[in-house]
């Protein structure tokens, strides 16, 4: 092997505290090193050209670049050696900037350490092998999980791009949280007027196959070739026949069902269509409350249904589809605010959540847009909004900012004044967080034009006082305690990952954080990718965000899916595990631990062996560390490569 070593000055970033010329001189003595030089900026165009030229001139078969972190420039140098005719895996980097020059000033020690790191890279490189990606055929279809605004946007963009889309939504209608909103900030546009047409587009798009009231049962396969089983929950209504006329919902005798769409701000019938603009506009029976289903007595809806769509015998149905990519857009839910016992913990009827308030504001809501407080239906005059209920509160394990509450609270304060001109809104806040186009102006308008009184401080307790609620809190700016007699208290409850998100993540084999939010591939650079190839994220499932950000991420995820599936085949990353069939004894420890199901048992002339599905393997190397005889090796990080690095440091 003939290795070229390039020691980067990175201007003075490295050269300032590392004797790069000395490192290059040391490198020249290392095994198989045919050429070693220091270079001003290895990553610059002339720097890369110098590498390419050296490869050709010195007939190099491998390159070590000692510069910044490989997390930064490994792809850059891979491309450079590839241009020079080498395989892109015949390069190793020694991180002598982040891990040497920037963390110590002792030039001698740094030079020694840099030399060691270069030596480790050289020893590893000597065992690098040419790796060639495999081509895998793909199914050009995208699964979108979640029919909120992010999912809708992703589905529409994918369909627009000519891709087939399967959308799965667990509620009977798509629309998500946005369909429950009355207006949107900062323009006070009607939410359903904005969202409605998009929902209709989904229904009408030939490329989109919509499964509502359905959930993802299981996912197998791998990028380009997922197989998804969808559980279509039984609505006890044959949706092929249901016209959405709504007669059943008028006649249903049980009107005390929990109204999910209205966040419990009213009740509904056992058979219902969640809201007038529902897509699809089909009736669903609530099996928990339907008298026919609970005790077999009733059957009114079946009698009145003009199309004979009611079917009490209906059962869940499993449907299997093949897709090439998945967009997870499962959105968010609200944290359980009843942990705040000081706010009544659900005991006081007139302490409601902001989404409940949203339904009170909505013309299609239970009060037809009249603000009536839940306890006695009276129009409230003094309304207290409390922000950061379950956000930025370490004491209950919710240290993060939900991001959108400041804005919707300002919106609700404005709308309150619109609905009840003689009302007074009080907003207890910690900080007003309104970074966004026209956002800060909006919160100002709430205070300045609509007279909402903003109090910087937390509420310590709410106690009933007659038919009012006494809200005690601090105004930290005035430096005093305040007490407000409120008719209604609205809590800006913080969000958390949608219920069931971790379970879905397990099915998708993607990571999630301790709040259940899905982990993106890279915080900065891969915000919609995940660590499972072919699975992308859109909307609040990745982290709480407002509508435009969700829509943007929906489009971004669609773009990623479209890009991924733009070709008939995919290139798999060849840094995968591979089995030495001569040495494998088929003990099965590898396939038992593989987090991705990428290893399966196979029969080779009567002997059991392990087989790696290269397209599924993500290259974690857990199997490699598990296999007792080392018959399964992770390419590019083989045992011998790691041992070579260790020995380079330790041989004594």
């Amino acid at each position, binding site marked *: 092997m*003939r290795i070229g070593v390039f020691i980067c000055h990175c201007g003075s970033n490295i050269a300032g505290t590392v004797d790069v010329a000395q490192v290059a001189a040391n490198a020249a003595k*290392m*095994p*198989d*090193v*045919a*050429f070693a030089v220091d270079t001003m900026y290895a990553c610059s165009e002339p720097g890369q050209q110098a590498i390419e030229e050296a490869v050709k001139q*010195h007939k190099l078969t491998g390159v070590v670049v000692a510069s910044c972190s490989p997390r930064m420039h490994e792809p850059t140098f891979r491309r450079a050696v590839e241009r020079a005719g080498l395989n892109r895996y015949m390069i190793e980097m020694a991180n002598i900037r982040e891990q040497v020059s920037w963390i110590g000033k002792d030039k001698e020690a740094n030079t020694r350490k840099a030399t060691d790191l270069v030596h480790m890279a050289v*020893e590893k490189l000597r065992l690098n092998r040419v790796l060639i990606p495999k081509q895998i055929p793909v199914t050009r279809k995208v699964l979108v999980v979640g029919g909120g605004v992010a999912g809708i946007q992703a589905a529409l963009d994918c369909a627009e791009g000519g891709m087939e889309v399967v959308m799965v939504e667990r509620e009977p209608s798509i629309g998500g949280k946005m369909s429950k909103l009355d207006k949107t900030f900062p323009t006070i546009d009607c939410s359903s007027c904005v969202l409605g047409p998009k929902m209709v587009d989904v229904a009408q798009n030939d490329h989109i196959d919509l499964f509502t009231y359905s959930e993802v049962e299981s996912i197998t396969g791998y990028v380009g070739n997922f197989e998804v089983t969808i559980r279509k929950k039984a609505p006890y209504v044959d949706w092929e026949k249901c016209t959405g006329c709504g007669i059943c919902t008028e006649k249903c005798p049980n009107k005390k069902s929990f109204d999910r769409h209205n966040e419990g701000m009213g009740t509904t019938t056992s058979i219902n269509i969640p809201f007038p603009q529902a897509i699809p506009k089909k009736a669903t029976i609530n099996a928990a409350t339907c008298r026919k289903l609970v005790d077999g007595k009733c059957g009114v809806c079946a009698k009145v249904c003009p199309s004979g769509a009611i079917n009490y015998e209906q059962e869940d149905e499993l449907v299997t589809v093949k897709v090439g990519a998945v967009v997870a857009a499962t959105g968010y839910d609200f944290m359980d605010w009843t942990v705040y016992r000081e706010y009544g913990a659900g005991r006081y009827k007139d302490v409601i959540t902001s989404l409940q308030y949203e339904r009170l504001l909505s013309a299609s809501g239970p009060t037809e847009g009249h603000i009536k407080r839940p306890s006695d239906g009276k129009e409230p005059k003094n309304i207290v909004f409390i922000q950061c209920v379950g956000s930025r509160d370490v004491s209950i394990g919710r240290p993060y900012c939900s991001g959108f509450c400041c804005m919707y609270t300002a919106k609700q304060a404005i709308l309150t004044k619109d609905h009840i001109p003689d009302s007074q809104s009080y907003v207890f806040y910690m900080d007003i967080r309104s970074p966004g186009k026209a956002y800060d102006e909006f919160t100002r308008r709430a205070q300045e034009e609509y007279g909402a009184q903003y109090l910087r401080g937390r509420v310590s307790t709410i106690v009933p006082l007659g038919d009012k609620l006494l809200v005690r809190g601090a105004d930290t700016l005035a430096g005093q305690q305040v007490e407000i007699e409120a008719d209604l208290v609205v809590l800006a409850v913080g969000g958390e990952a949608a219920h069931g998100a971790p379970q879905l993540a397990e099915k998708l084999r993607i990571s999630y954080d301790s709040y259940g939010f899905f982990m993106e591939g890279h915080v900065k650079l891969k915000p919609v990718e995940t660590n499972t190839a072919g699975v992308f994220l859109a909307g609040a499932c990745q982290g709480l965000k407002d509508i435009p950000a969700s829509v943007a991420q929906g489009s971004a995820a669609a773009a990623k899916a479209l890009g991924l599936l733009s070709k008939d085949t995919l290139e798999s990353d060849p840094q995968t595990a591979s089995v030495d*069939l*001569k040495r494998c004894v088929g003990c099965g420890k590898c396939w038992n631990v593989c987090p991705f199901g990428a290893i399966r048992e196979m029969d080779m002339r009567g002997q059991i062996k392990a087989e790696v599905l290269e397209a599924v393997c993500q290259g974690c190397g857990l199997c490699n560390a598990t296999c007792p005889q080392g018959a399964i090796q992770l390419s590019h990080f083989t045992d011998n490569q790691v041992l070579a690095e260790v*020995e380079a440091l330790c*041989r004594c």
Partner: protein
Amino acid sequence: MNAQNKFISRAKLADWLKELSSRFEVWAPRKEGEGARSVVVYRPFEAEKGLELDRKPTESAKHTMFPRSETLFNFRRNLVEGAPSLELEEAADPAPRLVFGLLSCDARGFQIFDPVYNGSGTNGQAKDTYYLKRRSSTVLIVKSCSKVLSTCFCNWVGGGPASTEGADVLATEVQDGFLLTPVSERGAAVLDSSLLAATNSDMESAAADSQTKAAAALPAAPDLKESQSALLGKFDNAAFWQAESSKCLSCGACTYLCPTCYCFNISDEAAGYNGVRLRNWDSCMMPLFTMEASGHNPRTPKMGRLKNRVGHKFSYYPSLHGGRIACCGCGRCIKSCPSSVDIRRIVTDAIGFTETVGLKEQNNG
């Protein structure tokens, strides 16, 4: 040989060995390990670590002549102005050695090595210089056995408790010391020490007596002449070998304790530019011994390997070396076998002699 027999008392033995240490790297048996785990091994002599001459050594003295691991040569690769270069450097010649207290079977073991390592296979074209250098410069002082174990069968293969084959000096325990009989010139040369005393006729007769007694204690030896053809005749008898090998673990305990097993492996170890080509003990009982790069292995099942070990000793080797059996009957492979595989039993089973040699109570199933 005109040299005189000599006597060394146990009390002076260590001093004599120390004296010899100025001329030789002296090796002798000593005890290692604690309690029930203790074993007797041949090690470079260190007076303070003692000698163990009462228990039979657990391991053979093979490694004193044929190290478990030895350097064939060092190599150094380099790039000189971009051009590869290579230097090879042969290992240094070994220092003269003296092994005290090896058993007569151990010494006879080297005689199995001799023709092979002296290039018999290539008509002397390729002689194993490493072995020959050691063999030429090593003095063997054999201690005759006064006791016989149930696993001993040196008499089956032409040996005896006081055989001098391969020995330079024979030491026989008498009174409170050893009667030293020079067997070769170089043996005689090491007996030239003021620490050694002259012998008397009591000693001489006691020694002769002890040797005779030990020889008599050995069980009757079957005639193994037929083993050559009998084992070849059984070569394709899978049922025979399967039964004989069922309990074999396929480990190397037998071959590594054996004074006559001489198989080795050659492997390179390198760090950076520097490397070393080693010759290490290997065992035909190990599954990978004959594994080819293609994955093909002519001796995949363990019975093929046991067959080779027994076959080599009692058939193939004798066929190449004038009928000499490549086993010295020390019985270590039997005594230390984890599964009590008994090579005597396999050979007599093959010849059909088992009943006649009193091994019938054993059952290999």
